[in-house]
């Protein structure tokens, strides 16, 4: 089995599994009146999911290049920052503190400029501060959005 076929087969199988769960829930949950429209959707959903899986299994699914190991390696650090930021830091540290750290981390990690230059570290810190000042002005002062404060702010 080629890597391309395997790449399409895995998401195809996962979507088929999701469609099967949705169909099963739509036809077994009560009251039935509440699930009439979901039943209609689930029939189309599972039909298309089977078709999509069959195309992947037969090697006919060629649209979409998939996720190469290089892409996965490149996005992994950013993805970790995103999940820590959204699922933990934003609430635990406070929105603004977590955002400063997340912005600075993403910027620094993906900045092609070498890490050894002190001048560039200062530049990154200043860009982060300027951006967060705009966000603070926009959301806290203008829109008056109350965000979780956490340990800090």
């Amino acid at each position, binding site marked *: 089995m080629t890597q391309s076929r395997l790449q399409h087969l895995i998401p195809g199988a996962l979507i088929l599994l999701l469609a099967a769960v949705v169909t099963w829930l739509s036809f077994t949950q009560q009251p039935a009146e509440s699930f009439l429209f979901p039943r209609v959707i689930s029939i189309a959903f599972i039909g298309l999911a089977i078709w999509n899986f069959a195309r992947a299994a037969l090697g006919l699914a060629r649209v979409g290049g*998939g996720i190469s190991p290089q892409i996965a390696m490149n996005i992994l650090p950013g993805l970790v920052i995103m999940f820590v930021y959204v699922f933990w830091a934003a609430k635990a540290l406070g929105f603004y503190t977590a955002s400063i750290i997340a912005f600075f981390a993403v910027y620094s990690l993906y900045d092609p400029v070498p890490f050894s230059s002190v001048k560039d570290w200062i530049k990154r810190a200043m860009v982060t501060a300027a951006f967060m000042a705009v966000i603070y002005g926009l959301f806290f002062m203008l829109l008056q959005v109350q*965000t979780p404060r956490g340990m800090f702010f």
Partner: protein
Amino acid sequence: MEFLSYFGGVFEPVSLMLLIGGTIGGLILGATPGLSPTMAVALLIPFTFHLQPTQGLILLGAAYTSTVAGGAVSAILLKIPGAPANIATALDGNEMAKRGEGARALQLSFLSSGVGGVIGVLLLIFLTPVLAKWALQFGPSHLFWIAILGVTVIGSLDSKSFVKGLLSGCIGLWLSQIGYDEIQGTERFIFTDALTGGIHIIPALIGLFAIPQVLDMLAKGRNPQTIASLDVPKYSFLDSVREMIGSIRALSIGTTIGSIIGLIPGVGGQIAGLVAYDQARKFSPDRNKFGTGHSEGVIAAESANNAMVGPSLVPLLTLSIPGSPTAAVLLGGLLIHGIFPGSDIFQKHPEVVWTFINSMLIGQILMVIFGIYTAAWAAKIAKAPMPVMAAGVLVLALFGSYSVQQSMGDVHIMLALGVGMFVLQKFGFSAAPLVLGLILGPIAGDYFTNGSMIAAAQDGPWVYFFTGPLNIILIALVIASIVYSFWSNMLQGSGKTEATGEAAQ
């Protein structure tokens, strides 16, 4: 001429300020490669939540108009289309800029965008009430089929694979059913506490459009590529106006094709620009000059992609079927302000709708003025480093999705949907049909439930949903949209489709 009586609302201080701010902001966002107009409008929706409906829609309308035109700046000066709608503009625009005619190309681009845009909005003004009156005949079964048609049309036309496009639409429809069923008082598909209130449209829009773009930027890694911008020597504005008037053929072709394509649900500006460019070349005596820096190429492409904006809102406002993916996001913006598009929209919300449409008309003129004077400046901002843009969009996405209901659950849903969409996009799935399914799902569900109740009291669901001339026409259109997409996929061959689609990205 009812629209004339609502012009005053556009010139109220806050509205005018939002119109100008939205236009300038949209031009900059549009000029920034990697930030699509759809994502820009999605990120703006949380801000409109804190505004009056009219003001919110003015901001979104201005952003929609100017992001499409702003994409021409980077297409001309950097040879990177700011949006897919500007692909055709880059072909001749960048060649002109290389010859030192960047200012001429930019002026022609904004002038033709303005002319195309004004004609497009005039079509919106005159066609929408006619279509709305016609739509008054629709009952629940017809409206159910229209909602389904919206999903199938976008699912079929906006995807490189029609199976995956329709599957995306189905996933969106299913996601829209998650939460509390208000009619029966029961819970549906709630697997975690964050889903108790269902999936709110704004965090979903932000997640589905912004997070995949952040991840796409990060996927390039620590790329040391620098974008080379060209100098923009000054050029006489009056000469540009004269040249545009002299290129009336290219302007007419672009405007006509853009307007027609805008009316077709789901097609969007990318196709409008490319088709208009191709037709202008075929009808031009200087067809050999196209691609070498010929001004008619810029005029045709830009007049088309902006002429598409107004007509793309005609099916949106009257039938809830958006003409483009950005219009689908705009539909979300209308719904969160309690404005349900349909046949009675001009009776229920005349002030909001007419002021919004009028603001788009004024916005076209502002876009020309600000576009010409801020183009060089916008191009500099467009060169902002990729990691700064990625980090900025991530933080904005968090604040934007939280600010709507002050709920961390919304933020978690936003990220989960965004990461899921990124993975799906890599396998050929598209965000637009999923979003449309999410937006139209509750509408289709309500009409289905209402129709089922009426059907139970009459001749049963089969007769109610599948008979009658209007039902049959709508079902035929649903089938036609699917068959057409299947047929064009077969005709082009998936390999070619993929190549075209990736080039368009």
